[in-house]
């Protein structure tokens, strides 16, 4: 009404307000996506050349050299080893903390502490804990049980294979399991992510109305029934969210692998981000971007699948 003049003058205003964010997103998020596609198809190394390389980069990663599959294997072991464990432990701890016992604010603070800590600095400490020499803490603990020292983050042999060796068995290929080096990184990551899961679960738990539990108790429900019939279903949105976020994040792990294992056991801890980084460092921009595109497609696909499969089981 009275703002007719104001409205006309202000027609460009919204776009102006959006401009800073939009320009930045276009330049550093959207354009790179297309540029990556482009580079993956036209660059072997260095600056883009004009000759069409076509699918050569993808061929190298998927077929000839197969580095993508190796890196995928590492990523899959890593995700399988960290996400479920952190979720289960996080759920357990959150449930215990939720009982409103005294001093729990402090406990929650400490559980969350690793999550805000620099992964570079923390990984240095964990490297020291897993030091391959006998003075390393992990080896010291092992020696208390009469086991010999292990190479920990130097060790490229799969953990299942290490166990099987004790029995004189040789496990083929992927059955050998994630390398001990990778397991060290996994333990670090669980320690790091636990607090996040705990805090999110706590929030989810506090959203469940007390009356539901009280009504169930009146009906004579025991602890197990309360857990499976009330807690978990009502926690399913939280769980759903955590599974998706944790999976995405795990596929993107870089810092701890770089700090903890990069030099020594590189082949067995080279997950997809490390593959991209290493190719980039070596100057193979084409391979790096192709790997990145594959990672993008993989994560997009995985997220969609997770949303479809898990989304159906979420109760609101």
């Amino acid at each position: 009404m009275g703002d007719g003049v104001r409205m006309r003058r202000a027609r460009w205003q919204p776009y102006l307000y959006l401009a800073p964010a939009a320009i930045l997103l276009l330049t550093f998020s959207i354009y790179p996506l297309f540029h990556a596609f482009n580079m993956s198809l036209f660059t072997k190394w260095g600056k883009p050349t004009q000759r069409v390389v076509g699918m050569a980069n993808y061929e190298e990663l998927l077929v000839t050299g197969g580095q993508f599959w190796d890196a995928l294997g590492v990523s899959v072991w890593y995700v399988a080893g960290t996400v479920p464990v952190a979720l289960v432990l996080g759920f357990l701890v959150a449930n215990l903390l939720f009982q409103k016992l005294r001093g729990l604010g402090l406990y929650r603070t400490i559980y969350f502490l690793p999550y805000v800590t620099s992964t570079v600095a923390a990984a240095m400490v964990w490297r020291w804990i897993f030091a391959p020499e006998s003075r390393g803490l992990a080896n010291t603990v092992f020696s208390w049980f009469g086991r010999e020292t292990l190479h920990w983050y130097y060790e490229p042999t799969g953990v299942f294979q290490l166990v099987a060796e004790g029995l004189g068995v040789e496990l083929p290929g992927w059955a050998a399991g994630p390398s001990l080096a990778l397991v060290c990184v996994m333990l670090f990551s669980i320690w790091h992510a636990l607090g996040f899961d705990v805090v999110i679960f706590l929030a989810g738990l506090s959203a469940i109305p007390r009356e539901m539990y009280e009504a169930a108790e009146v009906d004579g429900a025991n602890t197990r029934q309360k857990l499976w019939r009330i807690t978990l279903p009502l926690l399913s949105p939280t769980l759903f969210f955590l599974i998706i976020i944790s999976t995405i994040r795990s596929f993107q792990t870089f810092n701890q692998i770089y700090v903890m294992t990069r030099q020594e056991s590189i082949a067995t801890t080279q997950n997809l981000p490390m593959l991209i980084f290493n190719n980039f460092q070596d100057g193979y921009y084409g391979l790096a971007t192709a790997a990145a595109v594959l990672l993008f497609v993989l994560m997009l696909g995985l997220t969609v699948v997770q949303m479809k499969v898990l989304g159906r089981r979420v109760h609101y």
Partner: protein
Amino acid sequence: MKTRGTQRAASYLILTLGVLLVAFPFFWMLSTSLQTPEETGATPPTFLPASPQWQNYPAAWGSAADASSERASFTIYFRNSLFVAGAVTAGVLFTSILAGYAFAFMNFAGKRLIFLLFLATMMIPFEVALVPNYMTIDALGWYDSFAALIVPWTANVFSIFILRQFFLTIPRDYFEAAQIDGCSHWRFMWQIATPMAAPALAAITIFTFLGSWNAFLWPLLVTSSPRRRVVQVGLSLLRSEESTNLNTLMAASAIVIIPVVVLYLLLQRRFIEGVAGTGLKG
């Protein structure tokens, strides 16, 4: 049948065990940082230093200079990290307030489509953008500069989303009253809407600052000289000191960790809300 008391005692026990395990690496880092090399090299390992070797800390601070031939020091690294994190946070706040406000209080053609497009960019993982962004930085001549460290991170869709949600909860009456009084969008945004969004702004500040402070891969890629090096990269370069100077390395790690921990302990609830706030709004 377990009594209440037994159950609580068991809970306390398990939780305390967990807390000790979680806190242990920090203790171990501090302990090692204050030991002598002999104590650290001993088997079985020394748990508590006989007398704290405080000099490891100044040594660690200055050890950055030994790790590379150029003039480097943690003083420079901290200065850089502080500047970059501060600039990124200010940038994110600015761009997010503007964009969030536009989405919440203005009407314009294509609003819905543009918003969905913004959200869609959240699906683009940072690895895909890594090499292209590096090339963009290179093409702009920004390699090894503050611009490279700061600019790519000054827009954050998640923050825009949070602020938009928050602004949408401001009652229309405020807005309409302001309009009648002839208040411009700009003034309304800064003088009324923004102060009301203080909790959201606090959360954004914390997780943006923290994210920038802890960032490693991007700074590793786009900087090379000590003049522009950030704390995380500086620390990673000390890894070679591991065999010779483990105690100073642990002291260096502690130096990197302590400022954040102190801030965290002071602002506990804000931190936890801010960093984990992603999950709370469902």
